[in-house]
């Protein structure tokens, strides 16, 4: 189990994280969700014993990570946002080096290296220097170094960042396989990735924990907002203001987001507590404006995320 209590981190005078408290049970797959700068990477680096917290305590498997970071590091595999690679080394030499650093013996490495090359599907490039590999393969090598010592806890910071769609699916499948044997912590700002991979989410915003639970638990919230996206064209002197005025006057619209130009019109985000697409289209037509597009596009999780991290700020 991982238990963080009133964990905070300051960079100089700037608070990057906390105070946050949370628990992660053995065998769980937990996603750290938040916008860029929310404190996800800082939290994961502290959990991986790469950074020390400014205050608070953290226990990993019953061991105090601040007092005995060595014992914690033996139990953790960490894939940071930028994989920690020695690009001049061949893949298998690098993974072996990572295993040696984690205290593995030659016999253990001989047995485990083959398994890890299989898991990460790196057999075809095992003897290639890392600097000749594509981004997707480098990410796999980074994952291989994180699991070589078969850690109890696996921490993955933005594991699909920069991957193409095929590689994202492959990485997602790989993480699904790893869930069988490891407690997995993943950070991402990509909602679909988190929702498809994790059992539970911890939502961070500006260093604070603003939500915790499964996707369905987080979505069960009174007055959950919907998000309507509407693209409208007007021909007056100040079309933006003209459209904004019409949209703001519609019943049940709680907020009109800042518009942007698209396809000859302006696209607005409307926050609302009901599905009011019919009212919106009627109001636009009655005001003699051109309705170009109307969409109730966001998923339940996206709505939850927007609500937790501060409404329309997240969508801009």
């Amino acid at each position, binding site marked *: 189990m991982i238990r963080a209590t009133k964990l905070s981190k300051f*960079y100089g005078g700037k608070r990057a994280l906390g105070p946050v408290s949370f628990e992660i049970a053995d065998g769980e797959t937990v996603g750290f969700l938040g916008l860029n700068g929310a404190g996800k990477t800082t939290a994961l680096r502290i959990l991986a014993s790469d950074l020390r917290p400014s205050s608070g305590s953290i226990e990993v498997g019953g061991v105090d990570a601040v007092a005995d970071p060595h014992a914690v590091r033996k139990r*953790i595999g960490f894939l*940071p946002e930028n994989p*920690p*690679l020695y690009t001049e080394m061949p893949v298998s030499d690098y993974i072996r080096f990572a295993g040696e*650093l984690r205290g593995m013996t030659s016999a253990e490495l001989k047995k485990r290296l083959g398994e890890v090359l299989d898991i990460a599907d790196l057999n075809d490039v095992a003897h290639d220097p890392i600097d000749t590999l594509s981004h997707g393969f480098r990410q796999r090598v980074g994952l291989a170094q994180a699991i070589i010592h078969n850690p109890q806890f696996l921490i993955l910071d933005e594991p699909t960042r920069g991957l193409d769609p095929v590689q994202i699916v492959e990485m997602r499948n790989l993480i699904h396989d790893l869930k069988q044997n490891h407690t997995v912590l993943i950070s991402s700002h990509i909602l679909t990735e988190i929702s498809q991979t994790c059992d539970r989410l911890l939502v961070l915003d500006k260093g604070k924990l603003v939500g915790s639970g499964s996707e369905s638990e987080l979505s069960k919230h009174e007055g959950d907002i919907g998000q309507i996206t509407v693209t409208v064209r007007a021909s007056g002197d100040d079309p933006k203001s003209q459209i904004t005025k019409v949209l703001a006057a519609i019943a049940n619209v709680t907020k009109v987001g800042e518009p942007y130009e698209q396809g000859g019109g302006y696209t607005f985000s409307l926050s609302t507590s009901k599905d009011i697409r019919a009212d919106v289209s009627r109001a636009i037509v009655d005001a003699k404006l051109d309705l170009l597009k109307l969409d109730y596009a966001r998923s339940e999780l996206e709505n939850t995320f927007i609500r937790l991290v501060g409404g329309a700020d997240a969508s801009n």
Partner: protein
Amino acid sequence: MRATSIIYKRELGRYLRSPIGWIIAAAALLIEGILFQSQAMSGEQLSAIVLERYFYYASGIPTFCGVLLAFRLLAEERQNHSMVLLKTSPIRDTEIVLGKFFAALTFMAIIFVLSIYMPLLVKVNGKITFAQIFVGYFGMFLLGSATLAIGIFASALTRHQIVAALLGAVFVVIMVMLFPLAKRLDSPVREVLEQADLWWIHFQNGFMRGILNLKDVIYYLAVTYFFLLLAVKTLEAKRWQ
């Protein structure tokens, strides 16, 4: 210290396999050979004087190569993000620094070995002893360990390799200029700065002339220890930043 050995092997392999290490070695040996031929061997001299002059010029290898071999050691790890692998492995910052230090020191020793034909030529044609050659090289080895430690400390301060190289060079130049600076000052600051000098007092007046003084050995070991300790403490401090 198992981790020190693992990091040592990787770093030494890197020096031996990469062109950068050999370019530094070749440039140092070329310059040293030219200076040996044009300066140390010029005119008719006693062989002991020729050897002294050789070590005078050869001491440039540990002085400057120390910084050149060390500046990338930690800065590059941070620049390339590979430091995370070391910092999240169950190893101590001391083991990281020592592994890298001993690898660089070994490569510098290889450069020394490649330069030994020059004093051997003096030995063949003159009347010097192997002990004089050994003491001179021992002094260069200790001077090199001190400059490497200074270079590693500079490398621990920043993720930018160029900045690390400049910082290391500035630290070494300051340490070498302490003796000329001390001459302008009054006692007791003068004596303190003189004894802290990296080259004039401890190398030129001792090892270069074939004189082995215990205080010179202790001085270089102390400088090496001090700057390696600073490098370790800098790495530790960065975990809190």
